[in-house]
């Protein structure tokens, strides 16, 4: 039997950790049909059944306002899963129980998971399981995503509930409103909603969609709805408080609050908050770029040797395709895997500890000035990994203006695919100041991103701003397991890209540079193309090899590395000499201008296609291409001008 399970919960209650515990690394990401929110699914086998788990977007309420909330609500309402699992926070259960009551008004096949039970115990909080089961009428399980406690019990319960273990239907009473609710239920046509009580409640709460569906059938004064829309949540919370009073005992929560407040006092401090944020970012990049470098160097050594080994078998176009096209091309990018995994490892730590929302909180005022919010800050931060994931995460943003602004600004966030280019150029030209040069590029990237967001909002949306309501979760000690899954999920995307787009691009680049004259690079197709656009890039100090590599870089930025090493490597047949040649072909100032050009010039094909799919319009794609090229050219030219005066 295949059992579908929907995971529901507030943001930051450890929903993803429970999901990881249930299905392990066997998970995949798809899209919710019709909307732009990603759907995370996974499956696991338990005894004789297959449990298929869907991780629903975190929400506080089933009254839909943002796209995220709508996805969760619509999924549960229109296509209810066999079992719904609500993940609650044992330490701060109020908001979780509120959502649970809404959920029970919708479905009864619910399991309540009291997560972080280990932390609650440590704090001396006592929770009576049977009271919870009695009041909610559903099975309850205590879990800890950290230790794995309760996960087997949860799987057993999922199977039992799916097999029809009956839960007691509890009706939460709305006092004076009950008559009104009954009256609306009567007016709802049978064919419209099967769960009439839920629809009636949502109608009274002012849910836009349900209201639109029902407005022709129901005639109630607006002032009554206005009143009920506040009263219903208030009554729900009074139920929550009563249940907590019955089920909770033991120590109060003051201890944890103090520790949290002290950490917050430092990390979001009036004067130290922003410097600490910059310092943490600097450490993340130092870790990514400097500390794991020996690993990359070793991989580089292995790949060069493999290429030499293949060439020892002879000299024909097939051997050249293998050695210079496939191994050098893909391998030249694969050496950056340690860096990219290190970056996601560090970001995973920031996410798991609960620092990321603080970072958003600290910089919100600045982001707000750029017509962005803390939420989009987090989206943009993902862009440091890959602009595609950054653009895809903008789906969570409830506001169209902010989404467009973030989507068009995020290609300027320096993604990990540009990293190979920076690393190669800096190790040739700025070896002593590697960390500092890279840091300056990232600062550059942030400034241009902010400017673009502001510019886009001013240009297309007349400067209207966007709301932000965000939770700051309590600090947690991250688990290695979660960080590794996070790192693998994000990082493996890069390997996939290396295997597909970059593999194809490497072969095309090899083809264009090998033919028509069998490896004579100066007379190859690639050279003609590069020489064709060379005059445009001449003022920046770029020669035709650089121009050609930039052209190929449009398929994916890391291809610049493989095409450069091929364009130069062909002449001398080894990587270190190619590096020497590159360093002779450009001045240091032009090399820096090249780095900035690579940062800013038009987004890669994958990014452009996601701009198209997210905005649904070619208009934004064209805007992005033209705007970014102009920005790249202007800034690189300025750097060459100013640099030549100084040096």
């Amino acid at each position: 039997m295949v059992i579908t399970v929907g995971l529901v919960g507030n943001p930051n209650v450890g929903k993803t950790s429970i999901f990881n515990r249930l299905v392990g690394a066997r998970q995949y990401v798809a899209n919710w049909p019709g909307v732009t929110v990603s759907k995370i699914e996974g499956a696991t086998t338990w005894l004789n059944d297959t449990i298929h788990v869907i991780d629903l977007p975190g929400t506080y309420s089933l009254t839909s306002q943002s796209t995220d909330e709508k996805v969760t609500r619509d999924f549960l309402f229109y296509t209810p899963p066999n079992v719904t699992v609500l993940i609650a926070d044992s330490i701060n259960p109020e908001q979780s129980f509120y959502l649970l009551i809404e959920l029970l008004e919708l479905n009864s096949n619910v399991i309540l998971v009291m997560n972080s039970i280990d932390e609650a115990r440590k704090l001396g909080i006592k929770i009576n399981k049977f009271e919870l089961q009695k009041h909610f009428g559903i099975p309850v399980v205590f879990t800890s995503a950290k230790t794995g406690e309760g996960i087997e019990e949860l799987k057993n319960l999922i199977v039992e509930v799916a097999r029809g273990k009956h839960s007691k239907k509890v009706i939460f009473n709305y006092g004076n409103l009950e008559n009104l609710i009954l009256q609306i239920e009567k007016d709802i046509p049978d064919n419209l909603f099967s769960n009439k009580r839920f629809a009636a409640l949502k109608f009274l709460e002012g849910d836009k969609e349900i209201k639109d569906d029902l407005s022709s059938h129901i005639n109630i004064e607006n002032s009554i709805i206005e009143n009920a829309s506040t009263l219903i949540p208030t009554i729900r919370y009074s139920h929550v408080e009563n249940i907590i009073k019955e089920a909770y005992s033991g120590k109060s929560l003051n201890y944890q609050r103090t520790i949290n407040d002290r950490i917050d006092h430092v990390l979001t401090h009036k004067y130290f908050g922003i410097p600490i944020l910059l310092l943490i970012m600097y450490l993340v990049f130092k870790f990514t770029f400097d500390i794991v470098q020996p690993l990359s160097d070793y991989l580089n050594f292995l790949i060069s040797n493999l290429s030499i080994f293949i060439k020892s078998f002879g000299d024909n176009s097939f051997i050249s395709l293998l050695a210079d096209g496939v191994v050098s091309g893909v391998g030249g990018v694969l050496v950056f895997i340690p860096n990219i995994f290190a970056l996601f490892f560090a970001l995973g730590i920031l996410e798991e500890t609960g620092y990321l929302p603080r970072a958003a909180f600290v910089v919100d005022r600045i982001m707000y000035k750029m017509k962005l919010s803390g939420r989009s800050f987090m989206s943009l931060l993902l862009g440091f990994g890959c602009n595609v994931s950054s653009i895809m995460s903008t789906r969570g943003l409830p506001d169209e203006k902010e989404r467009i602004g973030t989507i068009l600004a995020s290609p300027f966030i320096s993604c990990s695919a540009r990293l190979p280019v920076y690393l190669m150029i800096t190790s040739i030209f700025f070896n002593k100041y590697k960390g500092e040069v890279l840091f300056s590029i990232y600062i550059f990237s942030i400034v241009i991103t902010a400017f673009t967001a502001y510019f886009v909002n001013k240009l297309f949306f007349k400067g209207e701003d966007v709301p932000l309501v965000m939770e700051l979760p309590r600090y947690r000690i991250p688990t290695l397991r979660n960080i590794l899954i996070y790192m693998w999920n994000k990082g493996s995307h890069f390997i996939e890209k290396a295997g597909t787009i970059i593999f194809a691009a490497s072969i095309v680049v090899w083809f264009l540079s090998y033919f028509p004259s069998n490896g004579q690079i100066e007379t190859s197709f690639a050279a003609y193309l590069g020489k064709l656009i060379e005059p445009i890039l001449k003022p920046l100090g770029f020669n035709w090899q650089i121009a050609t590599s930039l052209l190929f870089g449009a398929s994916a930025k890391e291809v610049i590395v493989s095409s450069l090493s091929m364009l130069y490597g062909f002449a001398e047949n080894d990587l270190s000499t190619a590096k020497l040649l590159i360093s002779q072909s450009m001045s240091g100032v032009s090399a820096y201008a090249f780095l900035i050009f690579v940062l800013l010039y038009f987004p890669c094909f994958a990014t452009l296609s996601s701009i198209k799919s997210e905005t649904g319009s070619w208009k934004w794609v064209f805007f992005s291409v033209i705007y970014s090229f102009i920005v790249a050219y202007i800034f690189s030219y300025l750097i060459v001008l100013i640099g030549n005066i100084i040096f």
Partner: protein
Amino acid sequence: MTLDKAPVGSKVRVVNISDSPIKHRLLGIGIIPNSIIEVVHSSPMGDPRVYRIFNKLISLRHSEASNIEVELLDDYIPLSHAPDGEYVITSFLGGFNFKKKMFSFGLQIGSKLTVKNGEVFHNNNKIFLGQGMKKKILLRRA
């Protein structure tokens, strides 16, 4: 008073939430009439600020907090907002140096203060305090 005007450190009771595109989310988080909100601290640039609702920390911008009508709780009135009357100091929001300074004025937790025509008296001596300092002294009615 709206929530964005409540000083840091004070506790307030929600009176009303006006209609806005974020009303449902605020209600879902637990910002409902009669719930208690503590203003925890502000971000480096003063806006947004963090509020404690039940035990969760929620950040709101001033523009959003201004949708929430609140009143100060009697035990957490900052001196800067205290109308004329008799008060007892319940806590100081400053660090060690602030407390030391207050002590030099003869003020500590439990000291009685009188506010008359906006002026502050302790043991019938008038005390001159800046607006910033007044914000850091929390009172309850005596």
